[in-house]
């Protein structure tokens, strides 16, 4: 089996690479590439994302054919894909960071700024917060409810269909922090930085 981490120059992905390699050991091949053929032939894809919604979408657009290849992988062939942080946010139809930007449109919804309630809540939402698991998700196998995960973000994904939400976290309001829609998985938090429990989520994804 091989898992491909999409390297589309969207900021720092070395922690994602390190964590997947740690979990995979020598049993699963971890590829880090933007090569379209390699993505097509992989069993699973990880879509990381750092920086703004717009900068990540722009970076995807910079690599000719990448969006189509990802669409084919996740939507046509329904192969497992995990989006992390902005990688999850890009599933939306539209994002409002910097300027209104069209997303991948895989999970209907929008990405807007967290309401900081007039400064009551600091942004970015940085640090360890507990997740409230609201539906069984395959990536939460053996993950206890209220586990701590590491977050860094100022924008939140607001899906139209609440049934895709697999976990929320409490910061200003109930922020969506994990989604599962058929073969598409996403976490707003960083499993690669969430200690042993985060590595377990990565392990669950690899072993889907």
């Amino acid at each position, binding site marked *: 089996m091989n898992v491909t981490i999409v390297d589309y120059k969207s900021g720092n992905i070395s*922690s994602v690479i390190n964590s997947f390699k740690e979990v995979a050991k020598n049993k699963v091949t971890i590829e880090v590439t933007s090569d379209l053929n390699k993505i097509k032939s992989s069993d699973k894809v990880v879509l990381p994302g750092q920086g703004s919604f717009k*900068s990540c979408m722009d970076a995807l657009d910079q690599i000719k054919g990448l969006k189509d290849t990802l669409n084919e992988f996740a939507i046509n062939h329904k192969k497992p894909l995990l989006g992390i942080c902005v990688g999850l946010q890009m599933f939306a139809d539209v994002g409002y960071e910097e300027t209104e930007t069209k997303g991948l449109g895989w999970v209907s919804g929008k990405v807007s700024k967290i309401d900081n309630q007039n400064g009551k809540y600091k942004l*970015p939402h940085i640090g360890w917060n507990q997740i409230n698991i609201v539906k069984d998700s395959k990536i939460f196998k053996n993950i206890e409810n209220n586990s701590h995960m590491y977050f860094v973000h100022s924008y939140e994904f607001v899906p139209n269909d609440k049934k895709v939400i697999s976990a929320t976290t409490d*910061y200003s309001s109930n922020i969506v922090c994990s989604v599962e829609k058929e073969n598409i998985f996403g976490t707003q938090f960083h499993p690669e930085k969430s*200690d042993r429990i985060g590595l377990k989520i990565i392990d669950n994804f690899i072993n889907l």
Partner: protein
Amino acid sequence: MLKNRIIPCLDVKNGRVVKGINFVDLKDAGDPVEQAKIYSDGGADEICFLDITASNENRDTIYDVVEQTSKKCFVPLTVGGGVRSVEDINKLLNCGADKVSINTAAVENSKVVIDSSKKFGSQCIVVAIDAKKNGDKWEVFTHGGRNNSGIDVLEYAEQMEKNGAGELLVTSMDRDGTQVGYDIDLMSKISSKVNIPVIASGGVGNLDHLVDGIKLGKASAVLAASIFHYGKHSVKEAKDYLDSKGIPVRI
């Protein structure tokens, strides 16, 4: 609920830990990777390396340290000390740092913070402020505390938020190394002034100081070095203590 963070800091010089944990069972007390792993296994919410390498020819040692650490520690890693340019930040991030703290360069050239936060995202840009009291205000010092820029700390903090800093790491130079506690007045004033998280640093001597930094100083995170070294307190003890005082921590 978001938890307050405890961040142990290790001083690294020429790739070796200068002040660190002094456990008898430690194979190599100077190995930053081993020390960072002990902290992360012990429940540290993040790890911070401060590179105090003085000579330029040994500068690259930190990259190797970061690379090795990021393969073993799966909590956020912040690296600072001697970061001069967007390229320096890029190199540290590529080696596996999750955040980079910028001190002198942020004062001398505002473009470093503006450009790097645009390029890599605010989430990985920490501006480190060395503050020293002068009359009824604080001033920003640079070059490891040797030079007084004369800039007002509160105005500077606000400016850094505007420039794109994701967090501020505030060290009171008056308190650093004294073990009498954080400069609570300084921390709470900065924390009230900006909407980004403030990490308090400088002066921790006991666990009550950590409590004060969060409760009175309104810091989102507390950084400490010496109380965790030499086995005086473990990170777990610190967390249990904070928890007993009603402060939300990850246990």
